[in-house]
């Protein structure tokens, strides 16, 4: 796959991806500064909607970097899966367990911390 296109230039695609990444970053920064109360102080899925938005935008950015800057799209399906599925599975697994454990620690130890003197 990659080898058919070896001599054609992808400059247009590269700048397009740069545009997408820039727009996402600008949106993230704008939301991070504005922090609208509706998104920031409400709760959904255990965190604020704003955090969910940030997480999704981050994953979109990661997708564009991996697929188009690192040319993952041009690799064979099997190499792509060997790398991406391994990472995605292990990271989700680790993060889930650690965050559940962290919330539990907070539940147990938080009430023991004294805040008045």
């Amino acid at each position: 796959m990659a080898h058919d296109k070896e001599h054609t230039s992808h400059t247009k695609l590269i700048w397009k991806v740069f545009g997408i990444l820039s727009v996402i970053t600008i949106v993230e920064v704008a939301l991070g500064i504005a922090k609208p109360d509706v998104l920031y102080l409400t709760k959904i899925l255990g965190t604020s909607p704003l955090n969910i938005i940030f997480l999704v935008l981050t994953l979109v950015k990661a997708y564009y970097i991996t697929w188009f800057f690192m040319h993952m799209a041009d690799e064979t399906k099997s190499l792509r899966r060997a790398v991406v599925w391994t990472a995605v599975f292990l990271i989700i697994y680790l993060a889930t367990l650690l965050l559940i454990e962290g919330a539990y620690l907070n539940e147990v130890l938080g009430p023991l911390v004294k805040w008045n003197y």
Partner: protein
Amino acid sequence: MEATIATKTNGPNWGGGDNNPLGSSYGKMMMWFFILSDALTFSGFLGAYGLMRFKFIDSWPIADEVFTHFPFMHGVHAPMFYVALMTFILIFSSVTMVLAVDAGHQLNKAKVTFYMFLTIIGGVIFLGSQAWEWKNFIGGSYGAVQLQDGKIIQFVDEDGHQVALESFAIDDHSERVQHTKSKGLWFVEEAALPAFTISEVIAGFEAHPELTIRTEKVDLETKSKTIVPREQAMLYLNKAKAVVVGANLKVNEYGNTLFADFFFFITGFHGFHVLSGVIINIIIFFNVIIGTYEKRKSYEMVEKVGLYWHFVDLVWVFVFTFFYLV
């Protein structure tokens, strides 16, 4: 099936004939699996950070109050802008890197040289920005008081805005001198003394009736730090142990010490990756100039360092999210 097809790529890469497992050259596949393992290392660090952050969810420092500096705008409260700038620098150097790879596919030496050069410059600027960010974090912005149980107390005015220690502390001209090896016990050292002593800070606090304090405790309803009424403030300040300015691995004026520890460790580990990326890029840059890949008729080496460079950018995207945004 693509997987089993052995296509010829850029010359003899694997030992044992023309087979190319997964249609990839040896170097590229190894770079991919190195990146995979490195990604898991970073995930381990960020996961540990997440664990501690969830453990102290009700007292974690608020990033917007920590990273507020911007070059040439002294005293202006500008959260996010600087780190957004850093993100753009890194994304842009990723773009120039991928343009270099693209030019390499067309065997265009002049273009590869030019874009590699821009990439290296971008990496160096990013490293400098990182150093400036660390300098501000280490130097601190307002100063705080640490209590005997390790909690941090910050000073605020009636609007709830933080106030710097030097704006109210009263200098009582104490004669306390920093101990150095040459002045006493040669085997005992002492860290640099803070600009003010606890008694100076408390004297200043008593002289300024508009001031009060706030604790690390976050009100989860409003996501802001709890402000203590002035009448109760002295109960806290009587327990003061030390004046803290800035952040280091042991104490941190912004709140939980772990926040600084993880910040230094993770951004430092990432910065070290950027540094090694810049050095590898420089080596490849010189190889391009002397024509190594021109003779080889393949710029695959540029592609491989490109993979590493993009990975560094990828990690920064996550560091940016977890330290500055969420």
